[in-house]
C-alpha cells in the first residue's frame, strides 16, 4: 500500500534536516503504529506524505499503491486514497462544516470519475456517520472546527475520514486530548473502517490507543529515523520503560 524508501527531508526555508532516511512499508489491510519522542519527526513525515508546503525532499521516495506520491498536489494524493487526520485540526471561520464535507466528498468522486452525491444522499450518510461518533447536528452546521473542543476536533477528523473512505489513513495523535469514552468512540470509528484492504498508520504516544486499535507492527522513530520495529509488545515496552533503553541500544 504505502512504500517509503530512504526518505530525507529538510525545511525549505532553513538548513534544518528533520527526516534522515525513513524506510517504511505498509501492506494492504495492515495497521502500523509509530511512537517516538517529541520532535523526532513523526508529524513531519505525515505532512510530507500529505503534501504540505515548506519541506524539501532531498532524497528517497514514497509511493501509494505504486503511484509516486511526492510528485502529486495534496488534492491528488487525497483522490489517490491518502488521508491525514491532523494532530492539530485547522479552524476555518466562514466555511461551514457541511459545505466543506460535501465539497470534499464530491471533489474526490469527480477526480476518480465517479458521479457526485446528491444533496439528499449526502445528508443521509453524513447524519448516520456523525451519530456513530456522537457529533450532533448543530456541530455540523458550524464553521469547520471553529469553537470545537479539542476532542470534538479529533472526532470531526474521524468523521471526515469516514466520509471520504480513503485507502491509506494516517492518524497523527488522534488520541491526544480525548477522554476515555471519546477514545473508545474514535477507536470504534477506526475499527469500523478496517478491512477491505484499507491500511492505517497510527502515530501515538500512548499504548492505550493500541489496546483499542490493534497494530500489526509498531515502529519507534527517533531523530528522523525509524530505529526499531516490532510487534505490539514494543509499545508495552515503551509504556513501561520510556525510550531510554531503546535509544541507548541504538545510540
Amino acid at each position: 500500500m504505502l512504500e517509503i524508501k530512504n526518505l530525507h527531508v529538510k525545511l525549505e526555508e532553513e538548513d534544518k534536516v528533520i527526516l534522515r532516511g525513513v524506510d517504511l512499508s505498509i501492506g494492504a489491510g495492515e495497521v502500523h503504529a509509530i511512537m517516538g519522542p517529541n520532535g523526532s519527526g513523526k508529524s513531519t513525515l505525515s505532512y510530507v506524505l500529505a503534501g504540505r508546503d515548506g519541506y524539501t525532499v532531498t532524497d528517497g521516495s514514497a509511493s501509494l499503491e505504486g503511484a509516486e506520491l511526492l510528485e502529486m498536489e495534496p488534492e491528488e494524493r487525497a483522490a489517490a486514497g491518502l488521508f491525514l487526520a491532523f494532530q492539530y485540526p485547522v479552524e476555518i471561520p466562514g466555511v461551514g462544516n457541511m459545505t466543506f464535507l460535501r465539497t470534499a466528498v464530491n471533489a474526490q468522486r469527480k477526480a476518480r470519475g465517479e458521479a457526485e452525491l446528491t444533496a439528499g444522499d449526502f445528508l443521509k450518510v453524513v447524519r448516520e456517520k456523525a451519530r456513530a461518533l456522537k457529533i450532533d447536528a448543530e456541530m455540523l452546521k458550524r464553521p469547520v472546527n471553529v469553537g470545537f473542543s479539542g476532542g470534538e476536533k479529533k472526532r470531526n477528523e474521524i468523521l471526515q475520514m469516514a466520509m471520504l473512505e480513503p485507502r491509506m489513513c494516517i492518524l497523527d495523535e488522534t488520541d491526544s486530548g480525548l477522554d476515555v469514552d471519546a477514545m473508545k468512540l474514535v477507536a470504534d470509528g477506526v475499527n469500523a473502517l478496517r478491512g477491505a484492504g484499507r491500511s492505517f498508520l497510527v502515530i501515538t504516544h500512548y499504548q492505550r490507543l493500541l489496546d483499542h486499535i490493534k497494530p500489526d507492527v509498531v515502529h519507534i522513530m527517533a531523530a528522523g529515523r525509524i530505529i526499531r520495529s516490532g510487534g505490539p509488545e514494543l509499545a508495552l515496552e515503551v509504556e513501561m520503560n520510556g525510550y531510554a533503553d531503546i535509544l541507548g541500544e541504538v545510540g
Partner: protein
Amino acid sequence: MALPQAKDDALTARLSALALPESAGWLGAARSEARARLLAMGLPVRRDEYWRYTDPSSLVAPAAPVAVRFNPGDEPEAFDAIDRLKIVFVDGVFDADASDDLTLSGVEIERLDRAGQADIHWAQGTYGVLEARGQTPVARPFAALNSAYATDGILIRVTGRAARPVALVYVHSSETSDAILHHCVKLEAGSNLTLLESGPAAARFNKVLEVEVGDGAEFHHIRVQGRDHERRAATHLFARVGAGASFRSFTLTANGRLTRNEAVIELAGPAARAHLAGAAVGDGDFHHDDTVFVTHSAPNCESRQVFKKVLMNGATGVFQGKILVRPGAQKTDGYQISQSLLLDEDSQFLAKPELEIYADDVKCSHGSTSGAIDETALFYLQSRGLPRTVAQGLLVLAFLAEAIEEVADEAIADDIRSRLEGWLARHAAKAGK
C-alpha cells in the same frame, strides 16, 4: 477665493466638453446652484488629500477614455431571478422599450427631465440638497458636477410598502460613452423600498443617488457594478436617515479600471440605523476606492461599515472611512471594518480609517487589516481533496461573508454569491501558486 490653477484648468477643460441641460422649472434652478458650487471647488487633482490614493485624471479628462465592452459570456444578468420592476438606461439614456411600465403600488416613479419642468415638485427638497450638505467638511466636486450636468435620472417617492424591488439596469453600449445620471429617492415615514442597481453603465459613469429615509422607513439598496474590465466610475450615495429608520446598502464590484464609490450618510433622527457594506474583487488592472463618511447627528443611532476586498495580480484597493459623532449624539454605536485579502505580493491595499467623536457616551470601533490567504487552511482543505482553486474560492467567500451578510434578502444574497463564485472560478486559476 481664487482656485489653485491646476483645479481651475481641470474644470475648464472638463466643462468645455459639457453643455448645461436646459430645464425650465425647479430643476433649472437646482442645476445653476450646483454649477456655482462646482465653480467654487474646481475639479480634483492628484495632490488633493482626499484623492491621495486614487488618481482622478481619467475622471477629470474632457473625454471618456475608450472602454471596450465586455462580454460576460453565459453569465445571467444580475438579479435575473428576482421579481422586480426594471428601469433600463443605455449609456446613460433611459430606454423606455427595454424598461417596464413605471407604475408600482406604493411608489411614484418619474423621469428626471419630465419632472424637472414643473414649478413645484417634492424632489426640490432632495435633488442637489443632500449633495450640497455632503460638500462639507470635504468637497466632492464630481457630485456637484453631476447635479449640474446630469442628463437623465429617476425620481422615486415611496409612500407605502413597495410591491416589488425597483431595479435600475445600466447597459454599456458605446466604447466612448460618458454617462451622468442623477437619481433621488424619498421614502415617506414608515414606507419601504428595495432598490437594485446593476450593470457597467458606460465607458465612464458619474452617478449620484440621493436618498431621504423618512422616520421609521426602511431602505435597502443592493448594487452590482458591471464587470466590464475597462469602465471607469465615480459614484456618490448621499443619504439622510430619519428617526427609527433603517438604511442598508451593499455593493458588489468585480473588475473595472477605476471605481470610486463615495457614500455620505447622516443619521439625522434618534435611533436611526445605517449599514454600508462592500465586496470588491479585482484582478490585474483594477483600482477600487471606497470612500465613506458617516455622521451621527442624533442619539441612539447605529452605524456599521463592512468593506472587504480581494485583490490579485497587482490590483489596488482603497478605503477611506470616517465616523463623525456630533455633540449630543450620545449612545452612538459605530462599527467600521475594512479588510483586504491579497492573493499575491503585487496587489496592494491602502486604508485610512478615521474616528472623530464629540460626545462622551459612545461606543465606536474600527479596524483595518490586509493579509494573505491562510496557507494552513488552504492545505487542510486540499488534503481533503479540494483542488487548490476550489479551496481558495471557499476561503475567499468566507472572507467576504461578513459583507454579504448585510444583504437581508436570501435570494438576492444567493445571486451575489453565485456571481462571486463564477468570478472566482474564472480568476482563481490565474492567482497562481
